[in-house]
Every structure is written in structure tokens, then in C-alpha cells.
């Protein structure tokens, strides 16, 4: 490339970059900005409308909320139900907690997947794509919340978990559970805004809330964030997960892989050349060839 062309190109590139920057600054909503759901457990009345809406939207188990007495036990999500509401008896009365995939912003499951079947979509929802999945269940091993659920009784099993209603989001709708919630216990929106709302609620009612937003920093930040009136370990949350995003636990190892692939073969060949020359003495020339029958001939 000659100098004139180079200058021209850099001017064009520079100009484009500038315009882009301006455009981004003016943009109201950045599609890459993470979205999420704020769950305010102090507002939840345990009506389980979210469970019904979720089951109906996804063609899965629709619970009979009036008669099944499911709140008496602590349930977990399973391959037939993406979300469940559990009741916890605490010093501040009964607390209802919705449980589903947390949609981590550095998702361990998506990092673990060898085929990108678990994938983080634009805006943050983590979804599963069956045409890619090999069923290795490494996502289940890696998920700190044990959320991907495997259909153990199918010959062609799927991995089931909440998708934050990704298809509905693409159409500009809210997730089904949020749309169904009668008490605004669930709030969908950009994560930054959710955090602001959460902080505002804590600061304006400092005695009613635990001064902690679960999911703000846990495992590097999650799409679902929770507010609570009681400490989170009393309502079924793990508080020992740490703030480090889980993919970072394998980062160093994966970083070292090319390092070893560069270095070790070179080291081995060098060692071999050294061993070879010291063994066979000055009269023999350097040779890469090896005789597997050396020993037999001697």
C-alpha cells in the first residue's frame, strides 16, 4: 500500500469511526445492553400466575395452583417446568421466591458447551439450541445454580431451562411470567434501570429490605436480580458462590493451551536433539529417524 492510499484509507476509517461514535451517543437504546428481570420478593403473594403463564407459553406443565398444594414443599425446576415459586417461613412471615435460570452475564453453561448449543443471545438471555447439542451435560456440571435440566427419560433428550422468553423479547413483548404478574413483583427492563429501581426501593424503605441485591455481583452479575426482606440464605439462595464470573475459572487454563502447544513440542524436539547427540557420539549425524527395533538388533 503506498502512502497516499494509506492516508486516504485511514481518513475514511477514522471518519467512519467518528460518525459511529456520534450515532451511538445519540441512540436511546443500545441493543447490546443487557436486559433482565427484577424480582421483589416482598411484593410476591405466591399466586403462581407466573408458573401458569410459563407453562402455557412453552407448552409445558401447567400447574393446578389452587389444589396441588405445591407450596408446602420446596420444589426445584425440572424438565417440565422452567419456573417454580417456593414458600419460606422466616422471621418476617412467609416469603415467596420465584426460581428459574438466572441468566448470568458470563454464563458458565454457555462457556462449558462444546458446540455452542447453550448460547448467550444479544441482550443477555441464555438459550439452548437442540440442533447443536450433543447431550454431554457439561452445562449442568458447570452451572452454579443447577438450572439446565435434562430429559433423562427420552431417547432424544432436550436440555430444558428458562429462556427469558427470548422469542417474545424479539417481538418486543415482555417475558410471559412478567406479563402475568399481578403485583409487579416482577419487573422487566434494561439491567441498569432494574438496578437503579432496586437501589431506590432499598434506600426509600431501608427497614423493609435487606441491603443487598442478589445477582448484582453474584457470579459476575445475573439477569435476574432479587430483593428481599430477609437475608438471602434464609430463602433458598446460595450465598457462597462468589463474585467472580464462573468462566474465569477456566480462563487461565484455556489461555495456557496455545502456550503449551507452542512451547512443549519445541522443548521436546530440542531435548531429543540434545539426547541424540550426547548418546551417539560425534561420528553420527543428527537424525530425526528412529528405529523401533534398535533393541532387537543389538
Amino acid at each position, binding site marked *: 500500500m503506498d502512502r497516499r492510499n494509506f492516508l486516504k484509507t485511514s481518513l475514511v476509517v477514522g471518519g467512519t469511526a467518528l460518525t459511529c461514535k456520534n450515532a451511538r451517543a445519540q441512540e436511546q437504546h443500545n441493543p447490546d445492553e443487557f436486559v433482565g428481570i427484577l424480582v421483589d420478593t416482598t411484593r410476591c403473594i405466591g399466586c403462581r400466575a407466573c408458573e401458569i403463564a410459563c407453562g402455557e407459553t412453552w407448552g409445558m406443565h401447567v400447574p393446578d395452583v389452587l389444589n396441588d398444594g405445591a407450596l408446602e414443599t420446596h420444589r426445584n425446576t425440572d424438565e417440565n417446568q422452567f419456573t417454580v415459586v417456593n414458600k419460606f417461613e422466616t422471621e418476617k412471615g412467609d416469603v415467596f421466591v420465584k426460581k428459574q435460570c438466572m441468566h448470568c452475564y458470563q454464563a458458565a453453561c454457555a462457556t*462449558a458447551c462444546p458446540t455452542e448449543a447453550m448460547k448467550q443471545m444479544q441482550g443477555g438471555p441464555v438459550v439452548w439450541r437442540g440442533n*447443536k447439542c450433543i447431550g454431554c451435560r457439561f452445562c449442568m*456440571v458447570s452451572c452454579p445454580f443447577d438450572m439446565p435440566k435434562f430429559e433423562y427419560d427420552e431417547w432424544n433428550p432436550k436440555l430444558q431451562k428458562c429462556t427469558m422468553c427470548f422469542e417474545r423479547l424479539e417481538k418486543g413483548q415482555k417475558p410471559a411470567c412478567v406479563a402475568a404478574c399481578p403485583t409487579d413483583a416482577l419487573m422487566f427492563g434494561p439491567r441498569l434501570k432494574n438496578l437503579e429501581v432496586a437501589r431506590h426501593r432499598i434506600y426509600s424503605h431501608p427497614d423493609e429490605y435487606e441491603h443487598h441485591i442478589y445477582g448484582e455481583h453474584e457470579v459476575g452479575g445475573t439477569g435476574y436480580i432479587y430483593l428481599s426482606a430477609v437475608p438471602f440464605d434464609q430463602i433458598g439462595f446460595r450465598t457462597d458462590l462468589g463474585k467472580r464470573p464462573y468462566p474465569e475459572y*477456566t480462563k487461565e487454563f484455556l489461555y495456557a493451551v496455545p502456550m503449551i502447544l507452542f512451547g512443549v513440542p519445541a522443548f*521436546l524436539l530440542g531435548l531429543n536433539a540434545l539426547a541424540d547427540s550426547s548418546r551417539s557420539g560425534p561420528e553420527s549425524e543428527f537424525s530425526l*529417524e528412529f528405529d523401533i527395533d534398535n533393541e532387537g538388533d543389538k
Partner: protein
Amino acid sequence: MNNNVAINASFGNLFRFFIQELKPRGPWLTPFNIISIPVILVGLGILVYRFIHGLGSVTNLSQETPWGLWMGFDVVTGVALAGGAYVITFVVYVVGLDKYHGIVRATVLNGLLAYCFYGGALLIDLGRPWNAPNPYIGNSFGFSSVLFLICWHFLLYMVCEFVEFSPVIAEWLHLEKAKRFLKKLTLATVVLGITLSILHQSGLGALFLMAKPKIHPLWWSEFIPILFFVSSIYAGLSMIIFEGTVSHKVFSHLIPEKHHHHFDDIVFGLAKGAAITMFVYYFFKALLFIHDKQWDLIADGWGLWYLLEVIGFVLVPALMFAFGFKHRSLRIIKIAAVMALIGIILNRLNVSVIAFNWYSVAHYVPTWQEIVVTFMVIFSELWVFRWFVTRLPVFDSGH
């Protein structure tokens, strides 16, 4: 006489030669056959059932314990035990210690078959195995995944080991030219194979890095990859001692007399290597124990279980190896090798199955079907191994 047929290789003759070689030799009703044939048949039946009715129909896997015996023993443990191939090829081809030349062929064959069968066991554990080519054919590379790395390394390493072993096949078929050519590839594949082994032995440990909150803190460490790599070295050495001893008993008619004496010498050398490696590994464990301030954790049952593994099946066999080497006692070395192998099995199962979800009330226990299939994998590997060593010049270099 078979060999002349093969050289003059019209296709039909070659085919007949293979058919000939597939026929069993020796008596049918040996104790090994009587035990292994029913196990393999039942195992195959279980697999058919599993592919119709799903994994849950024959295993005790659950949403909390997605990996059980098939992953934990067949894949994670089996690959560690197959580590002997890369250690021995390093010693013989890279460092050039000719003393160990006599066991290269058997060890590489063992490694190759172990990877085929134990890596293959990954397939029966996959929920959707028909998608298994996905990580390879390019429509979905999960570069961020440790398992993606392991998938590729298994495949590449199997190719390497096959090339390392291929001169023996060429010798069997009396293809002298091909043999000479294939031998030229040996050093290159050995170097690549060692590099790949370092990475996937440690990679099997790296699989559990993100399972931090689920594995008992005594077994989880950010250094699991290094621990897995170092322990695979002595796992491989112990396995060579164990497997060589058994082979020399079972296949003694195939092994020339001079090799018997020579093998004792080799065992002493391997024992020394194992003693040093295990000693270093023990101190790795001790360092992690101190760094993570784990002395609070050893008071309960898990702590005792941990001490049993680390002292009873690492430190004790390490000292036994050293003692056996010093006092030229094959018996002590062989017992130490078995103990070291038990230690490896314990360690790998602890990380992947036993101490996984240790806090869970309903702890995973394998079903009899899982155990039968595991034995099926082991027995079918032994069948193929036996087929190879009775036909190919594995124990004797043929000249």
C-alpha cells in the same frame, strides 16, 4: 504362510487373510471368557435399552448429578490410567533411554485401545450422540469449552497413537516399505502426542473448575489441571507395571525368555520414576492443603476419606516404590503399583462423582446396569488387546 498371501495382496486374498486372523486361537472356555462374554452381552443389551428409553432408564443420574460412573470412571479415570503411553514414548523416543524399548509396543497399544474404548464410552454417555460430530465438522465450534478441547485432543491423540503403532501393523502384514515410511513419522507423532496428553490429562481436571461450588473443598482447587497431569504420570507408570506383570503371566508363551528378565529391570526403573513423581505430587497436595487452610475440614468423615486417599494411597505407595527399588523387591513394587492405581481411581472418582454434590441428601449411587456397562467397556478392551497381542508382533519385535 499367511504373510505370503498378504504380500501378494490381491484384494480377495487380503480379505481371506483378515477372516483367518479374526478366528479365535486357543481354547474357548477360559475363565476370562466365561466371565467376560455374558458381561459384554448383557452390557450390549443394556445399551440398546438405554438408547430406546433414555439415560434415566438404566442409570441413577439426576438433575443434580449429571455425570456418574460412565463419565467418572470410564472417561476421567480410564484416560488417566492410559497415561503410560505418553510417558514411555517420552522416555524412549525423546530422551532416548533404550532400556525401555521392549515395552513401547505393548504400552502404546494399550494406550490406543484405552482411548478408543474409554473415549468411546463418552459416546454412550452422550444424550444426543448423533450430534457428536458437531464439535469437529465446523458448524459449531465451542472454543470457550474445555470439553471441546478434550474432544479434539482425544481424536488427534488417537491418530498419533495409531501412527506410533502402525509400524507394528505394517510388520504384521510384511509391508516393509510402508513400515520404513511409518517409522519416520514416529518422532513427530510422539512429540505431538506428548503435548496433546499434557493438555487433555490436565483438561480432564479443568472440566471441574467451574463446578467449584459443588465439589467438596478438599478436592476442588484451581490447580486441579496440574494435579491431574502430574498424577497421570505415575498412574501411567503404575499401570505399565500392573499390566506388564499380568501380561507376562497370561501371555508368557508369546514373550521371548530374555524379555522376562529384562522386564524386571524395567519395573525397577519405572518404580523409581513413580516414587519421585508421587512424592512431588504428595507435596503439591500438601501445599494446597496449607494454602486453602483446610485443617478445619479434616475432622469429619470427608476429611478422613481425604487423608485415606492422600496418605494411604499416595504417600504410602510412594514410599513403598522407593523401598522396593532400594531393596530390589518386585513384590513390594507390584503391591505399590496396585495401591497407586487404587489411589488414582479414588482421586478421580472423588472429584467427579463421590465428592461432587457432597452436601446433597440423595447422593448418587450407580445402578447395577452402569457397573455392568463399565465392565463391558473394560472387558471388550481386553478382548481387542488380546486379539492384537496374539497376532501382531507386540511383545516381540519379530526379527
